[in-house]
Each structure stands twice: as structure tokens, then as C-alpha cells.
């Protein structure tokens, strides 16, 4: 059952000097208890904005964000529903999200006392428990953030969200800027937290390789829209959207075979002026007539797959976009 549900979320930003940028142009994603939902895309695709909208840090222009049956409203002067504390966010950079002048214990205790979840006399014990839960070394609570490595700092940030006894944590690029080994440690921690505590995680990342390893479901976002979503292993084995395929092909593999990854031509266009028709069409290797004028909707295919591509008609059997491009005979002639 989904605990966090985003439906057709639209987020606009005011542009300096007038004008508006639609950072998220109608995206849906749901997070279920005990499962990890991955959200991938290039920088500038709106994934971080969607993360912020998911926890109410930015207002939505339309669409709905529902957490545990309650609407998630943007942060305002009047504070917000206490129950929303069970929806937490971890930022990308643990160097700036932790207070450098205060010990880990006092930062964790803050969360506990603000929410009043644990009586004062039990707070120290709970702080130690939280540190243990995220695999920090003994005595970590009495140290300052700068005494930890990047990976450990990210653990502290996660421990702080766990203090609120959340049911969903949104993680915005938690693994970026970490070495492979630290990344692996943290990825394993996320999996065990989700499985053991029944947490729903929304994992935002530009690294499809790691998302593929730990996320149960994945959504691919391009220029403010979802272009594909489905079970992770299915999407990885048989990507339906040309953009998902390009993301997978671009991952360099450490197999010593000296194979250059495929580059995707062009750049992510300005979200203020998205291309006509399919937003991906100027970079798509399979583009044809319709793509330039008509925006493809996200439709369901066989096997609980979803894709927004003219090559993937509703209800069709899943097939690689390249195969489909050959199957769909002369799509220009309709």
C-alpha cells in the first residue's frame, strides 16, 4: 500500500526578471512501506524539485501530494500537521545539512525533544540507539561532524531523520560524492532500514547503476515529466523509453574491456522553453514525424510497465524502442 502518493504534481518557479519555469510538469510517483522507489534523471530534470514538493518544501501549482491519507501542504508560518514529521527528507550534502559547531548527540537530541517522542531521561539511550541503527562507531555521539567521513556524515543525517520515527524518508542524491566503498556501505544500510523498519524510501539519484541495485521500482524523469516507470529489474533488462535506454547505455562498466559508453547527443533543453511534442525528441535516435508535434502520454503496457513514447502504444507487449521502431512500419504514414 502506498504511504506517499504524488499525483500529477506541477511545480513552477518564478524566473528572475519575470517569466515562469515549469520545473515539474505533471509527475506522479508512489512510495510503499518497506520498499525503495528510485527516481532517476539528468541534472535539471526536476527530480530534486519533485523531492522538495514531496515533503512540502516547495508549493505545488497543481496536483496532489498525499502522505498517509493527509495532504502535504507547503511549510507556512503556522507550522504543520504533527503527523507530517513522519515524512522526512535527507539532503545531498551532509557537510552543509549538519551543524558543524554541535556534537552529534545534541543534534540528534534536538529532534527528539522537539517532537517529544522520548522522555528526557531516556534521550541519551535513544541517541545511542540511533547511532547504532545507522552503523556509526561507538562514541560517535560525543564527536563533531567534521570528525567523520562523508559517508558517516550521511549516516548522521539519516539518524537524525530516524529520530522522528518516520514511515517515509525522501533522500535527495544521498550517495553522490561518496567513494565506491562508502557508497556500497550506505546503499546496504538503506536496504536494511527499509526492510527491517518497514520504511518507504524515495531515492533520488542520477546514478542508475546504484538505483538499479537497491530500488524495487524506478521512475525515469526527463525535463519535468516521467517518461518511464516500472519494476527496476524489468526496466533495466528491457527499457521501453529511448531515454531510459540511453541512460543505461551511458554507464561505463569496470570490466577492463575498454568499451566507451554511448553518449547521448545534445543537452537537456531549457525547462522554460521545452521542445514541442515529445520533450525528448531533439535527442532521440528513433524520432519520427509525430514526435515533433504530439506529446506522448504516459500509458500502461503489458506487464505493469509504463512509458511515454509514441513507439510504445498502450497495452502493447514490452519491446526495446529500437525493435519497436522497426516493427512500427513507416510510422510517418498514418
Amino acid at each position, binding site marked *: 500500500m502506498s504511504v506517499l502518493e504524488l499525483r500529477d504534481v506541477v511545480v513552477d518557479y518564478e524566473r528572475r526578471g519575470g517569466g515562469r519555469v515549469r520545473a515539474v510538469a505533471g509527475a506522479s510517483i508512489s512510495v510503499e512501506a518497506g520498499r525503495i522507489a528510485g527516481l532517476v534523471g539528468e541534472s535539471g530534470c526536476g527530480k530534486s524539485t519533485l523531492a522538495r514538493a514531496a515533503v512540502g518544501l516547495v508549493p505545488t501549482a497543481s496536483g496532489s501530494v498525499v502522505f498517509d491519507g493527509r495532504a502535504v501542504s507547503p511549510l507556512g508560518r503556522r507550522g504543520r500537521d504533527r503527523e507530517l514529521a513522519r515524512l522526512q527528507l535527507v539532503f545531498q550534502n551532509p557537510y552543509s545539512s549538519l551543524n558543524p559547531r554541535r556534537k552529534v548527540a545534541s543534534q540528534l537530541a534536538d529532534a527528539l525533544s522537539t517532537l517529544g517522542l522520548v522522555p528526557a531521561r531516556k534521550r541519551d539511550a535513544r541517541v545511542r540507539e540511533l547511532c547504532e541503527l545507522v552503523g556509526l562507531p561507538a562514541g560517535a555521539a560525543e564527536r563533531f561532524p567534521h570528525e567523520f*567521513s562523508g559517508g558517516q556524515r550521511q549516516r548522521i543525517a539519516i539518524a537524525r531523520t530516524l529520530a522522528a520515527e518516520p514511515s517515509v524518508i525522501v533522500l535527495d542524491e544521498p550517495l553522490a560524492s561518496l567513494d565506491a566503498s562508502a557508497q556500497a556501505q550506505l546503499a546496504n544500510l538503506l536496504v536494511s532500514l527499509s526492510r527491517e523498519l518497514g520504511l518507504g524510501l524515495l531515492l533520488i539519484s542520477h546514478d542508475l547503476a546504484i538505483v*538499479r541495485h537497491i530500488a524495487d521500482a524506478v521512475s525515469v524523469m526527463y525535463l519535468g515529466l516521467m517518461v518511464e516507470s516500472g519494476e527496476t529489474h524489468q526496466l533495466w533488462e528491457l527499457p521501453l523509453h529511448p531515454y531510459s535506454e540511453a541512460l543505461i547505455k551511458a554507464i561505463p562498466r569496470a570490466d577492463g574491456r*575498454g568499451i*566507451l559508453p554511448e553518449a547521448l547527443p545534445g543537452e537537456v533543453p531549457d525547462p522554460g522553453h521545452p521542445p514541442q511534442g515529445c520533450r525528448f525528441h531533439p535527442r532521440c535516435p528513433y524520432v519520427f514525424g509525430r514526435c515533433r508535434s504530439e506529446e506522448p502520454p504516459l500509458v500502461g503496457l503489458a506487464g505493469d510497465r509504463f512509458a511515454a513514447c509514441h513507439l510504445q502504444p498502450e497495452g502493447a507487449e514490452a519491446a526495446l524502442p529500437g525493435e519497436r521502431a522497426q516493427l512500427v512500419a513507416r510510422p510517418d504514414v498514418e
Partner: protein
Amino acid sequence: MAHEPRPSSGGRLRAAAETPTARARRVLGVGVSLLEVDELRVRLRGAGGLLTVVDGVGYRVDQGEVFGVAGESGSGKTMSMLALLGLLPEGAVVGGHVRFEDRELLGLSRSRLREISGRELAMVFQDPLTSLHPMLTIGRQLTEHVRRHLGLDRRAAERRALELLEQVRIPGGATALRAYPHQFSGGMRQRIAIAIALACRPKLLIADEPTTALDVTVQAGILRLLDRLRRENDLAVVLITHDLGVMSAIADRVSIFYAGRVVESGSCAEVLREPRHPYTRALLDALPHPEAAHDQPLVAIPGAPPNPGSIPSGCAFHPRCSFARERCRVEVPPLLVVQGRAFACPVDPLAAR
């Protein structure tokens, strides 16, 4: 028409623009050494005195090859490169030998080193936003170099700048020259930084995590660019990266760094396919493997890399090593050369399995 042809060609194009010497080298398997680093030692001034960050590192880079340097952050990869260029922080103490062609770089005067390092040796950094000047046009930054080092006049310098932009595939020509860094995307900025580095036709390009801040799709483009440039220009590239996938894509030979020492080196294909040092093995195991079953836990290396102030005795990797034996705690394992490969470990993980 069913679909248009894909703009970027797939596969690795080798022969197209290779220079004759490069081809001879590839076919014959012999390299012409360009850079030789021997027993390089770098100590930095810290709160408690001098800290050793590079501890007796040696390697060789041949003309026209991509030499990969990999390791976790703090392993001394960047510091060992900054030492070559004389860019270490104030108070650093450097020892050993660095021979570039037939000149010893260590001990050269600052001005002499600057002459060489602007011209024959160039460097590209991780973040082009900090390495490019935000207030100067691309054209100014591209021409400044050639005017200073090659003594070209304004018009010749501008011609060279346009040529460079074309080489790194920045569209727009003269219009692009009048633009500022912020008007370009991250990938484009990195291409511009590479163009600036190539301005004086260097023989060696040191690229420090050139794709780390970029998306994978853009990263692939930069890797293809570096690969093409070295083929067309017989350029040697030292690629510093923490990403073994990136290294695997374009490096010919590699060295793996740990705690300021080289723990393994050899051809990229051999090192990545059959690692002989437990650290290399562990680094590879920590990666999400494309063919692994979903939900299979990643094999992380326990603990974290040591700080320069507290390098463990013996083999620096022993506290994190699953093959560690008693002697690993006391003896620093020497770098043994076996059949063109080198590794610093008495336990061979290939044999130990």
C-alpha cells in the same frame, strides 16, 4: 523512413585518426616514455608537523596513452599530480624524481616550471565552474594562453581559439567566443576547460576527476572526446578518477593508489579483470555489478581509508583486508613486478580463492 540514423556512432572507433607513431606503438606494444615518476614523496604541513600524503610513488606514462590513477579520496592521487606542476600548498616538502621527457621537474624554479606546465603539461580539474574565470569571455580565456606561451598575435590567437572550439565540439564559433562560462551547461564548460588545456598543444594532459560532476550521458561524451583527442594529437592523458568504470572505458594502463602508495599497476584490462591486490579486488566488488541479481547486497570494504596522520603500520590496507595475515601488520609489502604487472601484497587474492 522508420527512423533517422543515430547521430553518435556506436562502438569504439580506433583506426580513424590515429597517428603513425601511435599505430606503431599499439601494434608493437612498445611505448615511448614521456613522464617517469620515481619514489615521489610529498609531505604537507599539518597541525602536528609534516604529514606524508604521497609515500614513494612511481609510475611511467608513455606518449599517446591514457594512464589511469584510481583510489578512494585521500589516497594521494591528486597530490601526486599537483606535485608535478608545482601546485602544492605552501610549505609542502617534495622528494624523489619526476622526469618529463629529458628534464627533471622537481627542483625547477617556479617560473621555469610555469613555462613547461602551461605549454607542454596541462591540467583539467573536476569542476569547470571553479577553473574557468566567471567574468571573462571564453574567447579571452582561450586566447590568453596561446598569446602568452606561443606569442601569437590577436588574430592568430583567435583563429586558434576557433579551431580549439571545433576540436572539442562546441557549436557557435565566433558567437561562442564572446559568451561567458555561465551561459554553457556543465558538460560544455568541461569541454571548454579541455580546449583551454589543449591550447598550446601539450604532450601531457592531467585530468583530475574530469567527469565526476557530470551526468552519465554527458560523461560518456567527455570520455569519447578525451579518447579522440589523444588519438588525433598523440596526447598522453593521466586520468585521475575514483570511478573504475570510467577508467575501464579509456585507460590503457593503470595504477591503484591506497594511503599514498601504489598498491597495484598494470594494463587496465588485466588489473580490472584479474586484480592481484586485495584492495583492487575489494574496490571492484563494491561496485554495483550490472549482471548481479537485484537486491544482492553490495560488498563494501569495512571501515574507511586512513587519514594521512594515522596510516596503519605494515601494509596500510591490512585493517580492512579480508586476506590480512600476521606479517601484514609489521612489514610494508614491496611492489613486486611479475610479468608486466606490479602489486604490493604477499597474498595473491587470485591464488587465495
